[in-house]
């Protein structure tokens, strides 16, 4: 069996106990260096400097008690084996610690040097095994991802070929078709599209598993996104003669979400709803605010389908869950759609749930965080509990030279945004989340904690670095303008939060005026601000 620990960090505040353990350790045959500290804070400082081969830990220290003690140690040094020194009266706690990842525990007063040496040797050995298991697990996950990405690529190639030739035939490019032939080919195309969706889901679920699913939140008008989703799904609904409508609360504020991902979630829920609703039924998409929760927008998709039995409800968001009752024409898919949707919502800081009763339809609901400028601004424009002096709004406008190409212009704007983020001080300036306007012109805003006299340094930096980007030079123009945000009055009795709300209001108003034609900004937030004051 492997090596005994060469360097032990002993954390014990009772000098008698400490000496005894030290003595037992040294009595053993192997060379061991013991570093003894009486307090958790000392131990954490030691672990900062060097990594021992093992930690011996008393749970009750002057500055920490019980479970919290080993939690902090394990957080600080996750790879170091921990053995607990326990009194007879807190053996239960020591046992709990073992369940939570501590290697072993020893009862004070029952420690012999042979016993101690063996316990420590095994602890080191087990920790090593644990670590190699973890490495193996990561390797296997990586292998699984590579494998799936490879498979997806290989599946796509023949699928593309089928898709191309079927659409050639369907579009009559190889001559006219008989009605039956047209019907059969449409069925082929439908299956090709299903297969395509499955390959996509497979990869998405793998990404969700390995934490590689990413969202890029922007400030979006969720109402428009819902209209878009409904318009996209209308043909599918019409095919089954299902009524599909959106009910939108006109006062819904802007939300802070990834537009592509949010659309994906909506499409997924609507598609499911249509799938499980019989002909002549109805599907309704709603967006509303809830009195009790001012931080999120509530979205829901309800159907008049046959509902989900109570015993299946807890499973519907699980991977690979498929409706056991699915009838023909509702080919089930991989059972990953809802799992992915829920993961996407969770990445936005929202939640997703379902309410249903067998026979009376289902309602899938989720929340998306509402876009609050004040929440984003608070840590940036305040310092030591006070509003920073001098706040300006920098407007960075990018205009394409011609009716530019979708892909490359979007990419250029994205690149500009990345560079822009490097032109500011992270602790006192903030590049506001981009507004989703659906227009080619892109406007970014920076809220900077500096006065109008000093902001020129930043403006020059933006002009040089963003304006110097070759891609932008080739395809568009840059305009940078600056506006001061009025500071609070000299005798201001408001709290710092209220002052930040004031700044947020002011910034919102300026942005709103500037792009009023492109976007209707957050009236709801303004309303709430007024209410708070």
């Amino acid at each position: 069996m492997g090596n005994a620990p060469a360097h032990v960090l002993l954390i014990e505040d009772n000098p008698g106990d400490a000496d005894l353990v030290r003595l037992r350790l040294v009595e053993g045959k192997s060379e061991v260096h013991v570093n003894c500290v009486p307090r958790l804070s000392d131990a954490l400082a030691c672990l900062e400097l060097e990594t021992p081969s093992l930690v011996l830990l008393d749970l009750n220290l002057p500055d920490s008690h019980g479970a919290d003690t080993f939690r902090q140690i394990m957080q600080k040094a996750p790879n170091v084996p921990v053995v607990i020194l326990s009194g007879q009266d807190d053996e239960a706690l020591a046992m709990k610690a073992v369940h939570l990842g501590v290697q072993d525990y020893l009862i004070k007063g029952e420690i012999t040097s042979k016993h101690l040496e063996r316990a420590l040797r095994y602890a080191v050995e087990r920790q090593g095994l644990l670590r190699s298991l973890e490495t193996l697990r990561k390797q296997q996950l990586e292998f699984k991802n590579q494998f799936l990405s490879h498979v997806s690529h290989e599946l796509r190639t023949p699928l593309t070929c089928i898709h191309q030739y079927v659409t050639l035939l369907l579009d009559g490019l190889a001559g006219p078709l008989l009605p039956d032939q047209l019907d059969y080919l449409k069925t082929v195309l439908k299956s090709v599209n299903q297969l395509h969706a499955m390959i996509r889901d497979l990869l998405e679920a793998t990404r969700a598993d390995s934490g590689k699913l990413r969202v890029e939140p922007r400030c979006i008008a969720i109402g428009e996104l819902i209209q878009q989703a409904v318009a996209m799904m209308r043909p599918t609904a019409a095919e089954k003669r299902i009524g599909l409508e959106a009910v939108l609360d006109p006062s819904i504020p802007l939300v802070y979400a990834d537009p592509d991902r949010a659309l994906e979630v909506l499409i997924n829920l609507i598609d499911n709803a249509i799938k499980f609703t019989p002909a002549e039924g109805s599907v309704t998409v709603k967006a509303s605010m809830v009195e009790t929760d001012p931080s999120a927008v509530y979205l829901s998709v309800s159907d008049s389908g046959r509902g989900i039995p109570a015993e299946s409800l807890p499973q519907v968001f699980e991977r690979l869950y498929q409706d056991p009752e699915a009838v023909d024409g509702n080919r089930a898919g991989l059972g990953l759609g809802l799992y992915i949707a829920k993961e996407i919502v969770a990445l936005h800081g929202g939640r997703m749930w379902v309410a249903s009763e067998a026979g009376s339809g289902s309602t899938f609901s989720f929340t998306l965080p509402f876009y609050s400028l004040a929440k984003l601004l608070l840590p940036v424009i305040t310092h030591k509990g006070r509003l920073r002096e001098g706040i300006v709004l920098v407007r960075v406008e990018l205009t394409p030279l011609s009716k530019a190409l979708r892909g490359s212009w979007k990419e250029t704007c994205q690149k500009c945004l990345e560079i822009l983020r490097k032109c500011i001080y992270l602790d006192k300036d903030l590049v506001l989340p981009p507004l989703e306007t659906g227009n080619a012109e892109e406007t970014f805003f920076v809220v900077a904690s500096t006065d109008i006299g000093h902001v020129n340094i930043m403006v020059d930096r933006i002009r040089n670095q963003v304006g110097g980007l070759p891609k932008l030079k080739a395809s568009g123009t840059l305009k940078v303008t600056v506006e001061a945000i009025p500071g609070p009055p000299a005798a201001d009795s408001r709290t710092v939060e209220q002052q930040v709300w004031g700044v947020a209001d002011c910034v919102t108003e300026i942005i709103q005026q500037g792009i009023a034609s492109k976007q209707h900004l957050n009236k709801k937030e303004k309303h709430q601000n007024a209410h708070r004051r």
Partner: protein
Amino acid sequence: MRTDDKTEGQPVNRPKIMVVDDDSDLRQALSLRLRANNFVTVNACDGYSAIAMAQKEKPHLIILDLGLPAGDGFAVLKNLRQYPSLAEIPVIVLTARDPETNEKRTLETGAVAFFQKPVDNEELLGVIRASLQAGWGWGGALPSNPS
């Protein structure tokens, strides 16, 4: 603008598109689709012949796969930039590879758009027309949609 394009009996005075893909079936299908939309097409099956064919045929636009023998799509993109006469040809990447790891890189290497296979035909044709209109390769009128 050239008016003397003649490619194996295909009509003259139309934008010429080169399809680069190692899958001959897909090359054929894409060419059929493009010709049905009044484009002239030429083909190449690997990275090396893509450059040779581009020099010979001077296409107005290139549809390029990434996974190719004899110089992959990235190598083709880089190579095209070496020749002043080819550097301005808009390239649309059409690949089975995933956008997460490839889209950004292809656009940075000079492609004007990235599509993952299978692609929606109308979307692809839309970007082809927009790219030609943007004035790099084609100064003439665009062929109209037959449908």
